[in-house]
C-alpha cells in the first residue's frame, strides 16, 4: 500500500461520512458544518489527483465564500430543526434516484474504460495543474477570457445591487 492510497482511503471515508451527516442531520447548522468538513476532504482528494490549484480554490471559494452564503440563508430563513414533510407525490425522489443511478453508471464506465486502456491519463498532469502553470497559461494564451471573467463579475455585482436595492412598492 502506497502513501497515496492510504491518504486517498482516509479522505474518501471521511468525505462520504461527512456527506451522509450533511443530508441526515436534523439541525441545519450541523448540516452546514459537516458540509464544510466535506469540502476540506474534497480539497485533499484533489491533491491526490495532482490538482493543486483546484484544491486551493476548493478551500478558498467553497469552504470560505459559498459556505458563508449557505449559513446566511439558514440564518435569514431562521430554520429550526427539520420537520417531517408530508410528500404526497414523490416525483422528486424518483428523479433523484434516476440522476444518482446515471452518475453511478458513469463512474463505472470511466472505471472500465481506464482499466481497458481506452482512456489515457496524461503523463504530465502533476506539472500542468500547479498554480504556476495555470498562471502561465491564463495570462498569455487565455488573456481575453480572463478579461471576460472580469466583465462577468461586474455583471454579478450590478445584478446583486439591482435586486437588493430595489424599492418595493
Amino acid at each position, binding site marked *: 500500500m502506497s502513501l497515496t492510497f492510504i491518504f486517498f482511503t482516509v479522505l474518501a471515508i471521511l468525505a462520504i461520512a461527512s456527506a451522509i451527516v450533511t443530508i441526515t442531520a436534523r439541525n441545519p447548522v450541523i448540516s452546514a458544518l459537516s458540509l464544510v468538513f466535506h469540502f476540506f476532504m474534497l480539497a485533499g482528494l484533489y491533491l491526490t489527483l495532482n490538482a493543486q490549484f483546484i484544491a486551493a480554490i476548493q478551500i478558498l471559494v467553497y469552504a470560505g465564500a459559498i459556505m458563508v452564503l449557505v449559513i446566511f440563508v439558514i440564518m435569514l430563513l431562521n430554520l429550526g430543526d427539520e420537520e417531517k414533510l408530508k410528500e404526497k407525490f414523490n416525483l422528486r425522489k424518483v428523479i433523484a434516484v434516476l440522476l444518482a443511478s446515471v452518475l453511478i453508471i458513469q463512474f463505472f464506465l470511466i472505471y472500465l474504460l481506464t482499466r481497458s486502456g481506452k482512456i489515457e491519463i496524461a503523463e504530465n498532469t502533476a506539472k500542468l495543474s500547479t498554480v504556476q502553470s495555470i498562471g502561465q497559461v491564463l*495570462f498569455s494564451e487565455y488573456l481575453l477570457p480572463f478579461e471576460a471573467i472580469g466583465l462577468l463579475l461586474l455583471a454579478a*455585482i450590478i445584478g446583486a445591487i439591482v435586486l437588493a436595492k430595489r424599492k418595493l412598492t
Partner: protein
Amino acid sequence: MLIEYVPLILMVIVGFVLAVVFLFAAEWLGARRTTREKQTTYESGMIPVGNARQRFSVKFYMVAVSFIVFDIEVVFLYPWATQLTTLGLTAFIAVIIFIVILFAGYFYELVKGGFNWD
C-alpha cells in the same frame, strides 16, 4: 508528489488537534461553579426578552454577495502573483484592466448605496 504536501497536511492536522485539545482541556480543567445569574442568557446586564432565534435582515446577504465577488477576484490574482516575474508587462496591464473593471463594480455599489445600512 504527495510527499510535497506533508508539511501542509501536518499543519492542518496540528491545527485541528490543537483546537479540539483546547476545547476539551477547558472543559476538563476549568472550574465550574454555576449560579442562577451565570446560567441566564447574556444580554448586557439586562433581563433577556424574547427569543434569540430571530430572522436576520436580508441586508446581511448583500454583504455576503459582495464578499463572494471580490473573493473570486482574489482567486484570479493568485496564479498571476505566483508567476509575476516571468509573465512580464502584458500580464501586468491585463491584471490592471481586470482590477479596473471590478473597481467600476465597486464604485457602482458605493454610489448606489450598497455599503449603506439603511
